[in-house]
C-alpha cells in the first residue's frame, strides 16, 4: 500500500538527509535553497544533531568538513553564488576524503543572476568548480520523490567512498510541492551506508592507507588511540605532506579511481520510450519533465522520440550515451544553460549521430512545446 504525502522539494531534501543519518548541517541563507536550512534548523536539534548558521558559505563548508572529521554525516545547501564560495573547501573535502553532501539548488547565473528563477548552469562547475583534478559524484533528481531517494543515495556514496557528493536541484524542484510515496522511506526499508572504521590496532593505524576499494578507513577524531593528521597538501599514508612524485601521482590517481571504478554501480538514468526511439532527448532535472511531455506530443505526431533522463551526472554514463547515440538518428540536449552537458553528450556519442542543442539562460523553463518544435525540426531534417 502506498502512503502518499504532499511534500515540498527543499523540505523533502532535509527530511531525507535526516533519514540517511545526517546529524550536522551548516549553511548560509540563499534563495532558492534556504528552506533546506530552515527545515534542518527545526529537525536537527530534536534528533540530537547540530545545526549552525555560519557567517558565510566558505565557513559553512569548513564547518561541515570539521564535523565530518568528528564522525558525523554532514551536509550544507546553497545556490549559485554560495556554491562558488564553497569551492575551495569542497576541493579540500575531496583531498582529505571527508564524506559530506553539498546541495546546490540551481538558480539563474552568472553572478547574482536570477535568484528566484531556475537554472542548470552548474553542471560543469559541480565537477570542475574547484581547482585541481578530481572526480566528485554529482546526482540530479527529477521530482520530489526522487529528491528523497537521491539525498539518501548521496549520503550513502559520500560515506562509502569518503568523498564529497554534490546533489543538484533547481529552483523549480526545490520549490515544488508533489506527492511522495513515503512507504519506501520507512525505517529498515531503504539502504543506509556508514563509513568504514579502521580494522587494525592503533599501532598499525595509518589514516590514509587505502583499502582494496581505494578508500581509506579514517577513524573519527576523538577515537582513542587512532590519532591522525589531515592536510590539503599532497600527503602520504600518515596524512603528512609529501612532494614525492610517485606518491603525489598515486594519490590523485587513487582519488579519481575510487569514484570512477564505482561508476557502473552509481550510474542511474530513466529511459522513457527509448526502445524504438529515433530521436533521443538527453537531459535532467526540471527540463526532463518538460522533455517527457514533449516525447508524448512528438509521438502523437508520429515522431519516434524518446528520453534519457540522467540522474547520476558525474561520473559520466559514457557507455550508455554512446549506445544511445548508436541506436538513434539524432540526439537533442535541452538544458537551462548556454550548452554545458551537450559537450559531454557530444564527447560520449563519438560522432555516432548528430547532437543538437536547445539552450536557455533567462530564468524561464523550457516548455514541452518548445522541445517538440525542436524535435519536429530535427525530424524534418533541419537542425
Amino acid at each position, binding site marked *: 500500500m502506498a502512503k502518499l504525502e504532499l511534500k515540498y522539494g527543499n523540505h523533502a531534501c532535509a527530511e531525507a538527509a535526516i533519514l540517511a543519518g545526517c546529524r550536522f548541517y551548516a549553511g548560509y541563507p540563499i534563495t532558492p535553497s534556504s528552506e533546506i536550512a530552515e527545515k534542518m534548523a527545526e529537525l536537527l536539534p*530534536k534528533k540530537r544533531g547540530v545545526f549552525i548558521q555560519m557567517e558565510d558559505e566558505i565557513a559553512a563548508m*569548513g564547518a561541515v*568538513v570539521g564535523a565530518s572529521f568528528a*564522525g558525523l554525516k*554532514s551536509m550544507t545547501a546553497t545556490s549559485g553564488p554560495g556554491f562558488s564560495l564553497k569551492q575551495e573547501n569542497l576541493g579540500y573535502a575531496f583531498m582529505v576524503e571527508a564524506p559530506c553532501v553539498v546541495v546546490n539548488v540551481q538558480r539563474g547565473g552568472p553572478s547574482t543572476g536570477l535568484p528566484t528563477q531556475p537554472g542548470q548552469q552548474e553542471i560543469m562547475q559541480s565537477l570542475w568548480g574547484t581547482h585541481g583534478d578530481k572526480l566528485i559524484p554529482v546526482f540530479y533528481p527529477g521530482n520530489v520523490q526522487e529528491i528523497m531517494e537521491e539525498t539518501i543515495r548521496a549520503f550513502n556514496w559520500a560515506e562509502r567512498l569518503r568523498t564529497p557528493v554534490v546533489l543538484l536541484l533547481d529552483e523549480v524542484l526545490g520549490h515544488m510541492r508533489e506527492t511522495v510515496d513515503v512507504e519506501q522511506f520507512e525505517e529498515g526499508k531503504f539502504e543506509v551506508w556508514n563509513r568504514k572504521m579502521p580494522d587494525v590496532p592503533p599501532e598499525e593505524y595509518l589514516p590514509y592507507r587505502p583499502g582494496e576499494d581505494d578508500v581509506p578507513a579514517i577513524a573519527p577524531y*576523538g577515537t582513542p588511540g587512532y590519532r591522525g593528521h589531515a592536510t590539503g597538501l599532497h600527503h602520504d599514508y600518515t596524512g*603528512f605532506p609529501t612532494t614525492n612524485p610517485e606518491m603525489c601521482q598515486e594519490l590523485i590517481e587513487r582519488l579519481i579511481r575510487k569514484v570512477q571504478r564505482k561508476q557502473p554501480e552509481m550510474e542511474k538514468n530513466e529511459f522513457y520510450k527509448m526502445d524504438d526511439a529515433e530521436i533521443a532527448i538527453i537531459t535532467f532535472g526540471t527540463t526532463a519533465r518538460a522533455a517527457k511531455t514533449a516525447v508524448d506530443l512528438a509521438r502523437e505526431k508520429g515522431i519516434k522520440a524518446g528520453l534519457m533522463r540522467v540522474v547520476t551526472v558525474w561520473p559520466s554514463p559514457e557507455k550508455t550515451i554512446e549506445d544511445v547515440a548508436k541506436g538513434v538518428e539524432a540526439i537533442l540536449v535541452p538544458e537551462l544553460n548556454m550548452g554545458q552537458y551537450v559537450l559531454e553528450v557530444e564527447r560520449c556519442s563519438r560522432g555516432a549521430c548528430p547532437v543538437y542543442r536547445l539552450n536557455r539562460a533567462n530564468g524561464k523553463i523550457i516548455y514541452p512545446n518548445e522541445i517538440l518544435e525542436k524535435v519536429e525540426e530535427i525530424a524534418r531534417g533541419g537542425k
Partner: protein
Amino acid sequence: MGTPIPMEKIIEKKPYFKYLRLDKMPTIWCPGCGIGQAFRAACMALDELGISNDQVAMVSGIGCSSRTPGYFDGFTLHTTHGRALTFATGLKLSKPELTTLVFTGDGDALAIGGNHFIHAARRNIDLTVVLINNWIYGMTGGQVSPTTPEGAYATTTPYGNYEPQFDIARVAIAAGATYVARGTAYHAMELKKLIMDGIKHKGFALIEVLSPCTIVYGRKNRMSIEEMYFWFKENTIPVKAWEKLPEEKRAGKIPRGVLYHDDSRPEYCEVYWNKVKQLSGGE
C-alpha cells in the same frame, strides 16, 4: 630523524615530548623562528593540565604557523588559508569533549580569515586560539600583513608600510572573545601560563604570540635573530605595570599578559547542547 636516547627517558625529563611527532621532524621552520616556542609552550600547557593526546584536536589554516599541527601527536587538521576557525567550529560543536586548539597566523586569522575570527569570538565557542603574530606573511616570502608595523619593509611594501596596524586583542575583545592574552616568543614560561589559562577557560580564548619571523621579516628589516628577541624583551611590559604607566609613557610599549577575562558569558557548545537536551526530552 631518529634519536639515540630512548623516548621513555626523554619523556621522563621532558614530559611534553609525548605530544611531538618526532618522526616528522625536523620542522620546516627557519632557525630562530618563534613558532617553535609557541608550540612548545602549548605542549607544556597541555601536559601541566594533564590532558592526554587522545583528548586534543589541533586545527590550523595555511602559513608557517599553521604547519604546527603536523608535528603534534593528536587529532590534527591542516585546512585552508584563513578558514581554520570554521573547521574547528564544526569539529568542536560535534565533539565538545575534545580540547580544541587552533594555530594560526596574522595573515591567516586577520586578513583572509578576519570574518571567521570575528564570528568565532562572537559565538564564544570554546576554542583556544594561538595566533602567531610575526607581522608578516612568512610562508609566502614576506608580504605585508594586517599587523605589519607602519614603516616596516615587506616584499610588497618596498617603500615602507603605510597601512595602519590591526590591534588583534582589541578586535577580539570587541567581537566577544572572553579570554584575551598576549605573550611573546621571548617570554616562554609566561606564554605557557597564558596558553594554560586559555585552555582552562570555557569560551573563546585568544593568545596572541608576538613571534619573530627571523628569516623573512628580520632580513627585510635588518634585524638579527638576537635583535628581534631583544626587541620583545625591551618593548613589551606586563599589563599590570603598563596600566600604571601614565599615558605619555605608554607610547611604543606593548602590554603582555591577560588583557581581558570574563567568565560570565555562556559558552556556545554548552548553550547549543543544553537546547538539544531540552528539545529531545532530557538526557
